């Protein structure tokens, strides 16, 4: 089932086009990695998918009853967040806000759901801790639990392993894979890491300044662009 369909999409900042003529679909249960160099428009595309920036041309269509606020999001951390006085449970629970509408308080159901997602990610031991006392990897898990509270269908992750050490990075990738395989949650992930993308993703969207690639991971590895970037990374 198609969840998101993008047709001939372009984004621009004050008449400079950053992304042009992009067409791709995201189906239920897929794992799409968006790769590309800095400035190739990855972040802009994510903003578009989240409805924070409207495309200058083309359309993003949400299908299969996916509401635009039903997209879980794991943003990049801001420096201000690192020492923010917030309880872990407070942070996870804030993911339920989109289901609240104008009603100002959380229901029992919201709290139950937050707790379920905390258990799902194995961070029960952190519930009573303060967010700012956690390690980088633990913080990312908390934010992932929050994203799960916001959506059962699809999660968009913006470079979720930035600043994590290799072991924690691997754990994070495993966790995301598990959510995708076991819980059938659709994943869209922005990544710098082409090796990991090829390893875990079912589809690759490679943004480049003049031409972009979209297809399955197998197609990507065989394509000239994939061969070029993938082999280049491997040789390191």
């Amino acid at each position, binding site marked *: 089932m198609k969840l998101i369909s993008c047709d001939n999409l372009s984004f621009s900042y004050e008449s400079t086009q950053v992304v042009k003529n992009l067409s791709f679909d995201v189906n239920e249960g897929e794992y799409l990695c968006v790769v590309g160099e800095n400035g190739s428009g990855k972040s802009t595309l994510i903003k578009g998918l989240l409805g924070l920036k409207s495309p200058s041309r083309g359309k993003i269509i949400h299908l299969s009853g996916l509401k635009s606020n039903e997209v879980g999001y794991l*943003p990049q951390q801001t420096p201000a967040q690192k020492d923010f006085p917030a309880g872990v449970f*407070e942070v996870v629970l804030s993911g339920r806000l989109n289901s609240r509408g104008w009603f100002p308080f959380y229901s029992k159901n919201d709290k139950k759901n937050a707790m379920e997602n905390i258990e799902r990610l194995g961070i029960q031991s952190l519930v009573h801790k*303060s967010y700012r006392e956690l390690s980088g990897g633990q913080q990312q898990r908390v934010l992932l639990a929050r994203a799960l509270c*916001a959506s059962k269908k699809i999660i968009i992750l913006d470079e979720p392993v930035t600043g994590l050490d290799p072991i924690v990075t691997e754990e994070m990738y495993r966790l995301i894979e598990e959510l995708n395989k076991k819980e059938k949650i659709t994943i869209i992930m922005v990544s710098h890491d082409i090796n990991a993308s090829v390893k875990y993703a079912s589809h690759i969207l490679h943004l480049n300044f003049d031409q972009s690639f979209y297809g399955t991971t197998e197609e990507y590895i065989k394509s000239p662009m994939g061969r070029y970037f993938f082999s280049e990374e491997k040789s390191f």
Partner: protein
Amino acid sequence: MLNEIIEMFSYPFMFRALVGGTLVSLCAALLGVSLVLKRYSMIGDGLSHVGFGALAIATAANIANLTPLEFAMPIVVAAAFLLLRLSENSKIKGDAAIALISTASLAIGIMAATMAKGLQTDINSYLFGSILSMSQSDLWICVVLSVVVLILFIFFYHKIFAVTFDESFARATGTKAGIYNMIIALLTALTIVIGMKMMGSLLISSLIIFPAITSMRIFKRFKTVMISSAIVSVICFFIGLVISYIYSTPTGASIVIVNLGALILFSVVGFILKKAGIHQKVF
């Protein structure tokens, strides 16, 4: 001591200062937590200088039918929206813009006041605060404002938390972050204008910044930081006010000194708790 305090507040002006000041401290502390965490503390500082400029011009020009406060309010509110936009817009350096606006307002205010009647003690009380400044009508504005702020914080607490903690996530999941930012800027502007005459325009921003920073030394959750800020702010205000009355010191300066004391106390306690390895589940 107790008799002295009771006697002190039997004066109508002291009673007004007590009630109005307590309410302003409460509002400033609640708004302050959000402003400090969003790295917007300088907006509060900038606004107080704009407020000084506006008040000085209003007093000097003696505009008919408008009290200086009524004249200053819309100007400071407009400045709040401007500063908020400047801070959100990464193209213009927000901190430099705020410094420009605040020094310019200060200069214009001083010029206006001096040209009108020469530099007088009036200016001194504008800059550093006066215990006599809370009028009956100011008091009513204080009451209305604090009711609005309290309702906002009770009903939109979770949204304010979400917008403060992570604006991009809040926006992505459909919370209108821009509206909450504007409401917070608007209420901050009003709090500053009202509190300014008592605290002095150079010192009013301390009411916003000190309690939040102080509370964060010990408390580690948003809710506890909020509650602690409100309590610390009100207590410091009360002690400062009493000191100001007994020793005839400028009200604003006295309150800031007490706040500084609280900050040091909390820092020491926080340090000891950390060293002692006490797990702060409750905090």
